């Protein structure tokens, strides 16, 4: 039985991180080269951690399944990164960022972690600026800020609509520097398929080379997973095509607890689905809600084009229902409001599956040039996809799966329940509770990678000074390699009749219907019957072409989808178990009279953490109680 010890330091919240850095063990500079560390993933969290650990002197091996570290999906983040700099002088502070983040997460995150995140947010901006990240600037030459959902201050730094790209390039360049110096060894087109444990500790990984199919073992003193989120369980999401759960799922099956898998974020501003052949959804940055106004026609039978509908026959429903936050209501709130409009048959577009995001007022007020400077690349992307010009007609948007707050359970040091195994960035569950605020994902990824993990990992490593890593010819590695090989052989040998995508599409449909924006007891119970049946069919009838010794994208995809089935089941189980509505988790049975989420702080103020017990055995449910010493629990109101 695993016990959860979050290892939150003693003392006032403002002092916890400072005290902790003093209390934990250090590895002296000369000894750092005696340690090998493996990092999986090269997004914001992985690249920043690998670069920083390399600078400190550790021997780092970093793995990515992409052709280059710069491709990781952090690159697609558009709108910005939060920090408590208070440059605009509008009342921001570390405490306010902390408070907003806990509230935005609907009071389901760990206070101490969130405070630390807010605390290091300012250093991130300094660090990225020093690296040459070209943040947007005022004419004075100083940094510009904009607003994001769930905040009443302007604290979001940005680089046009390409903030994730620029931050990732900064981290990638820092990583490239360490690769060039020989401190970090980079393995591209290499996918981690298993964590290797010995005497209960993580001692390495088994990796498959996607070009040659070769399976190899790599050993280290510690393993860091920075492998992102699992929104692709829904098939259609804004995640990149290759994003998957395999690394964290394999870790879960090896004993790392998985926390709050049902906390998933449906982003309100995505381009609506056009037809059944679609493989991918595209996000339109939340920053657009700074200047765009969201509305639907008052009349469900409206047939006129958007621009022909007079002002009084439009319902600017976010401004109407949430006057103080208006179009900048947080994502979960905005998504559910859009869903209600569409359920009332007021949706727009050919499939009546969207709502309008209208820039006419902003263009009238500021001029087209200003809007183009702020959002030009987003408008262009919208035009490419829909063939409509958003400068002339309102955009159509619809909620779509985007981010997963759930992930591997980690303690204050970002270590999972498996000693020596860490999870950082979106792969862990730590900072966003039940709903993430806009522009906070980039902040968390870089906080973990640049400023938290490189300190906290020393506390574990210090105990293994002069202890050699377990050699890769050890039985633990050989047995794990064998597991990986037999799984791949199995996938190739089924030779059934259905494609991997057809299974994935069907799984996605179950998940979006039953475990998407709104969840019901009966729907989740149905999903818990349907998913295992579909999984069994997958293992009997999937068709994977090609061989295991050449580039084979179908094989890689099949292995990822196989893990999505198991994760989907856990998500539904978690959603069923959590008898309340909070943040992105909306149980229809638990809502206020106005249809807002209704939390149960008496029975549900905890993080769930699930322990794997076997494929057909229910996982064990652990709970980490959440104590709120600093933030008063309240019904979240954005009215």
């Amino acid at each position: 039985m695993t016990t959860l010890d979050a290892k939150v330091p003693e003392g006032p919240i403002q002092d916890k991180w400072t005290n902790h850095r003093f209390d934990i063990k250090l590895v002296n500079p000369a000894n750092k080269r005696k340690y090998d560390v493996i990092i999986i993933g090269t997004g914001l969290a992985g690249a920043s951690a690998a670069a920083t650990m390399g600078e400190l002197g550790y021997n780092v091996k970093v793995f990515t399944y992409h052709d280059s570290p710069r491709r990781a999906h952090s690159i697609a983040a558009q709108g910005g990164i939060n920090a408590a700099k208070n440059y605009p002088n509008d009342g921001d502070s570390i405490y306010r960022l902390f408070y907003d983040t806990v509230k935005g997460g609907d009071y389901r995150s760990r206070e101490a972690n969130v405070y630390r995140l807010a605390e290091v947010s300012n250093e991130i901006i300094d660090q990225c600026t020093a690296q040459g990240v070209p943040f947007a600037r005022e004419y004075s030459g100083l940094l510009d800020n904009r607003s994001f959902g769930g905040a009443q201050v302007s604290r979001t730094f940005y680089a046009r609509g390409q903030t994730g790209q620029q931050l990732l390039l900064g981290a990638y360049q820092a990583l490239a520097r360490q690769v060039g110096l020989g401190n970090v060894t980079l393995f591209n087109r290499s996918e981690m398929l298993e964590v290797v444990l010995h005497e209960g500790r993580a001692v390495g990984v088994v990796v498959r080379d996607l070009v040659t199919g070769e399976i190899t073992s790599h050993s280290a003193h510690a393993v860091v997973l920075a492998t992102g989120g699992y929104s692709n369980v829904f098939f259609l999401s804004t995640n990149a095509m290759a994003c998957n759960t395999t690394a964290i799922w394999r870790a879960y099956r090896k004993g790392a607890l998985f926390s709050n898998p049902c906390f998933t974020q449906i982003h309100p501003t995505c381009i609506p689905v056009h037809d059944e052949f679609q493989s991918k959804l595209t996000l339109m940055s939340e920053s657009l809600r700074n200047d765009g106004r969201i509305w639907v026609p008052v009349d469900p039978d409206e047939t006129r084009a958007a621009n022909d509908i007079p002002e009084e026959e439009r319902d600017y429903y976010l401004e109407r229902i949430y006057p103080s936050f208006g179009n900048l209501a947080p994502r979960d709130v905005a998504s559910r409001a859009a869903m209600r409009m569409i359920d009332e048959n007021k949706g727009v577009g050919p499939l009546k599956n969207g709502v309008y995001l209208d820039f006419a007022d902003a263009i009238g007020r500021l001029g087209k040039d200003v809007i183009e400077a702020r959002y030009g690349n987003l408008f262009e992307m919208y035009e490419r996809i829909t063939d409509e010009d958003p400068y002339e007609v309102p955009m159509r948007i619809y909620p779509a799966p985007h981010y997963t707050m759930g992930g591997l359970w980690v303690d204050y040091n970002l270590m999972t329940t498996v000693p020596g195994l860490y999870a950082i960035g979106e792969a862990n569950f730590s900072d966003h509770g039940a709903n993430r605020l806009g522009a906070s994902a980039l902040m968390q990824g870089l906080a973990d990678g640049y400023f938290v993990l490189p300190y906290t990992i020393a506390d574990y490593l210090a105990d293994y000074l002069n202890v050699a890593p377990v050699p890769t010819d050890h039985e633990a590695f050989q047995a794990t390699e064998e597991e990986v090989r037999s799984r791949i052989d199995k996938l190739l040998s089924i030779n059934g009749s259905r494609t991997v995508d057809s299974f994935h599409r069907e799984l996605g449909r179950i998940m979006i219907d039953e475990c998407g924006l709104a969840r019901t007891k009966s729907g989740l119970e149905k999903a818990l019957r349907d998913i295992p049946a579909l999984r069994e069919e997958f293992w009997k009838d999937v068709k994977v072409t090609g061989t295991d010794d050449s580039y084979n994208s179908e094989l890689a995809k099949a292995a990822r989808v196989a893990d999505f089935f198991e994760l989907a089941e856990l998500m539904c189980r978690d959603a069923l178990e959590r008898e309340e509505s909070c943040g992105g988790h909306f149980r229809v049975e638990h809502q206020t009279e106005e249809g807002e989420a209704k939390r149960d702080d008496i029975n549900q103020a905890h993080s769930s953490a699930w322990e794997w017990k076997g494929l057909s055995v229910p996982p064990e449910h652990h709970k980490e109680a959440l104590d709120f010493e600093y933030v008063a629990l309240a019904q979240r109101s954005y009215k």
Partner: protein
Amino acid sequence: MDLTLKVWRQDGPGEPGEFKEYEAKGISADSSFLEMLDFVNERLVEAGEEPIEFDHDCREGICGTCGVMINGHPHGDQKGTATCQLHMRKFNDGDRIVIEPWRATGMPVIRDLIVDRSPLDRIIEAGGYVSVNTGGTPDANLIPIPQMAAESSMDAASCIGCAACIAACPNSAGQLFTSAKLAHLNLLPQGQPERYERTVAMVDKMEEFFGSCTNHAECEEACPKSISIDNIAFMNRDYIAGKFKDRRKAGQS
């Protein structure tokens, strides 16, 4: 719409390749080019054939993973558009579309439409960074940067590293990619201390893999982010300066 695809198929690096024809029937005009390939591939798998391998990921035109030659144009002939953002409505029913991988000696084919672009990482490793370690950096607003400089830097930093510029170039030159990274950093105050060393190191590394620039400007035409060849002139100037400069005084320039 119904289309005929003529696609380059190649089993592996160094293997002989050939064009093969495929019918793509019932394609939605609203599909992206890659969704069209997904659709064709799913039919191929159903028929027990190996699908056409191509690199792709974000499908939002930002990660730079995708990119193929479409009728002889890198990313197709719509200007400023990556392959994933190209939509089938730009084609006509009955079209025959020729799809090939990037062709350059420095980027050998891995399989079908996938090539090895790791030389681009090697060029960045040679100097495409600011040598600042994590921590101890000054407050971000202590480094004021004229808005125009920040914007120009951002224009160059928009490069997605897809390598279309190299594929478009008759010399397979890597100048546009390399110069975009150099301009991103060399236009900023943070990039000044290493400006000339960076330029020389990256250009020298580039030349290990790719050809020379003879000002065809095909790269700018092909670039999905419309990166300007002005950057190449800027790079050449810095390269010459870097070669001749007294390095001890470089920081004072």
